[in-house]
């Protein structure tokens, strides 16, 4: 629901506890989505983002609702962070009319322009030049909006990455490139496909500033993204941010990630979990109490369950939806 999404968008922008809650929500939704697939209630495939919640929420905290964001098929987290509701996401995954685009897209295809989310991209790298183009709109119109492209480490090896960053640099477009370096592209560890360790170094090719960011810390993600967005809005051009993070689940539905080195997941989970870390910090600061933590946990769990129930109760996308929204009817001249 658009109006609810706009309200949720604002919460993450303004309130750190809301950010904590949203991270919990993302984790819970992703876990539930995996179950839905495991139970055979959903058809197709899904790519979940447990472990990467801080990137999604930190970026959403920094960007404005009027900024445009492109992200990938691993986009549930970014979508929720930007304000989409659990029902928008789960409804879409379950192919229901209440879904983000009415149930014709599935897990890889979410969209909500009202909060800046352009259609999520199932083609690796494709969202990168598209974000540059959204930034072009701002530049041509002279507004102070900006754009953010969120993409994976593996995507930094594809041509669209190179061309998108180069174009943004030469035109000084107000765009921030957020690389979610979760260490894996599908079943391949980054070192097997990418000859360098720090992808931030790739900014050198474009004379672009860059920064390595702790992607498990939503405050760090927020600060770095905000700084880069300020830089962009000031007309100083794009920035490449490399968020060091980790993908807890396998690549997609059926993948149990047998290729991971022993202990790697445990190390990230035990020592660098973004939710645990942020909770500890907020508690230490006195911003959050253990009681609130519990309450948030319960509320979120209930919210996700309600979303599943509501989605199941709502109609499947009907045959007629296959024929809708293919060609836009109105033309400028008419």
């Amino acid at each position, binding site marked *: 629901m658009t109006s609810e999404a706009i309200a949720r968008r604002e919460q993450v922008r303004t309130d750190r506890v809301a950010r904590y809650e949203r991270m919990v929500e993302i984790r819970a939704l992703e876990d539930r989505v995996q179950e839905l697939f495991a139970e055979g209630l959903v058809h197709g495939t899904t790519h979940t983002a447990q472990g990467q919640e801080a990137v999604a929420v930190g970026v959403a905290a920094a960007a404005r609702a009027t900024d*445009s964001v*492109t992200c990938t098929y691993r986009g549930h987290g970014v979508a929720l962070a930007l304000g989409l509701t659990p029902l928008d996401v789960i409804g879409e995954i379950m192919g229901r009319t209440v879904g*983000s*685009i*009415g149930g*014709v*897209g599935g897990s890889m*295809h979410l*969209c*909500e*322009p*009202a909060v800046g989310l*352009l*259609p999520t*991209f199932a*083609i690796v790298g*494709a969202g*990168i*030049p*598209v*974000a*540059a*183009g*959204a*930034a*072009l*709109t*701002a*530049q*041509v*119109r002279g507004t102070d909006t900006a*754009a953010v492209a969120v993409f994976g480490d593996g995507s930094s090896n594809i*041509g*669209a990455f*190179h*061309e*998108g960053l*180069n*174009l943004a640099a*030469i*035109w000084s477009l107000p765009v921030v490139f957020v690389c979610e370096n979760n260490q894996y592209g599908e079943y391949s560890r980054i070192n097997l496909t990418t000859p360098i360790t720090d992808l931030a170094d790739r900014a050198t090719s474009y004379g672009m500033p860059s920064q390595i960011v702790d992607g498990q810390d939503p405050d760090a993600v927020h600060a770095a993204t905000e700084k880069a967005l300020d830089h962009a809005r000031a007309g100083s051009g794009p920035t490449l941010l490399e968020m060091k993070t980790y993908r807890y689940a396998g690549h997609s539905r059926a993948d149990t990630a047998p290729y991971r080195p022993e202990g790697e997941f445990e190390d990230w989970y035990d020592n660098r979990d973004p939710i645990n870390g942020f909770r500890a910090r907020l508690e230490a600061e006195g911003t959050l109490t253990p009681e609130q933590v519990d309450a948030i946990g319960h509320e979120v769990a209930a919210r996700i369950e309600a979303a599943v129930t509501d989605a199941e109760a709502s109609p499947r996308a009907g045959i007629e939806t296959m024929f*809708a*929204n*293919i*060609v*836009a*009817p*109105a*033309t*400028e*001249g008419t």
Partner: protein
Amino acid sequence: MAKMRMNQAISAALADEMRADPDVVMFGEDVAVAGGPFKTSDGLLAEFGPSRVRDTPISEMGFLGAAVGAASTGLRPVVEIMFIEFLGVALDQLATEAAKFHYLSGGKLTVPLTVRASTGAGLGFGTQHSQTLEGWLIGTPGLKVAVASGPQTGYGLLRAAIQDDNPVVVLEPRVRYSTRAEVNVGDDAVIPLGVAARVADGNDVTIVGLGGTVLTALDAAGRAQGWSADVIDLQTVYPWDRATVLESVQRTGRVVTVEENPFGGGWGTDITSVVGAELFGRLAAPPLRITAPDVPVPYGKHLEARYVPDAEYVTAQIDHLVSHGELPPHWWDDGEVGQ
């Protein structure tokens, strides 16, 4: 009315749309300072400035993708792909992103994107710079594909494309950039997409041309002895105007497509397949496709001239069809040149 070359008509269409709407922007390789490799954007930089008229790095995927993003967020970008072959490095953004964004946004976004590309043989550019390649685009729901046949349609189709809220590709036969003709400009000259034009009237055969072959078809019809032809400029090849074509063939009883592409897989298969099926039992002769042979476009004036069907050949093919009621042989069926 003014006498213009097709490239001037294209510049004029761009200028008219840019004057009418500040959201129209234009970019591509050397389109700004140089006014375009084919001078199809001459004067635009001077009139509209460097924010709206931009030169890009050599990166078709990058700037076509940027156009998709710009179109989704409020601009109406026009991008130039210098030679249609270069879509081979950028097709994803057109076919898989732009064409599907309206659908994949649940109708919330529109993508008023225009992609212009030059096509075709005749200027000696060799195998990788002389193809028509509509086949890469046809069959992509969400995309419209128009083809200019000369200055007037170059003007009118481009304006319609820019006004359309969907991604539209306008192909421009390179060999026609220098064709001069009187051109009606202004809003009345906008040519609606999806509509074909009957550009000559006759009784015995319907010749369907597209882009560069429309003039050839007209020329062939002009040489006809013993038969006369409706000539249709298809104008939009995807989705194409079934009503106009079927109405004509219903009257003439014969359909001939004149194509500048190999025989296997060309756009004419769609036309002749539909006409053959819809008018089954009501045709006086088999649907005929006149095409280039199934070879890469060769270099060399005489080879290239032979590759593209010319008016004389078209007339001879139709003579055979009309007089014998059966398919004529292709020129390359001759044993001497055969594959």
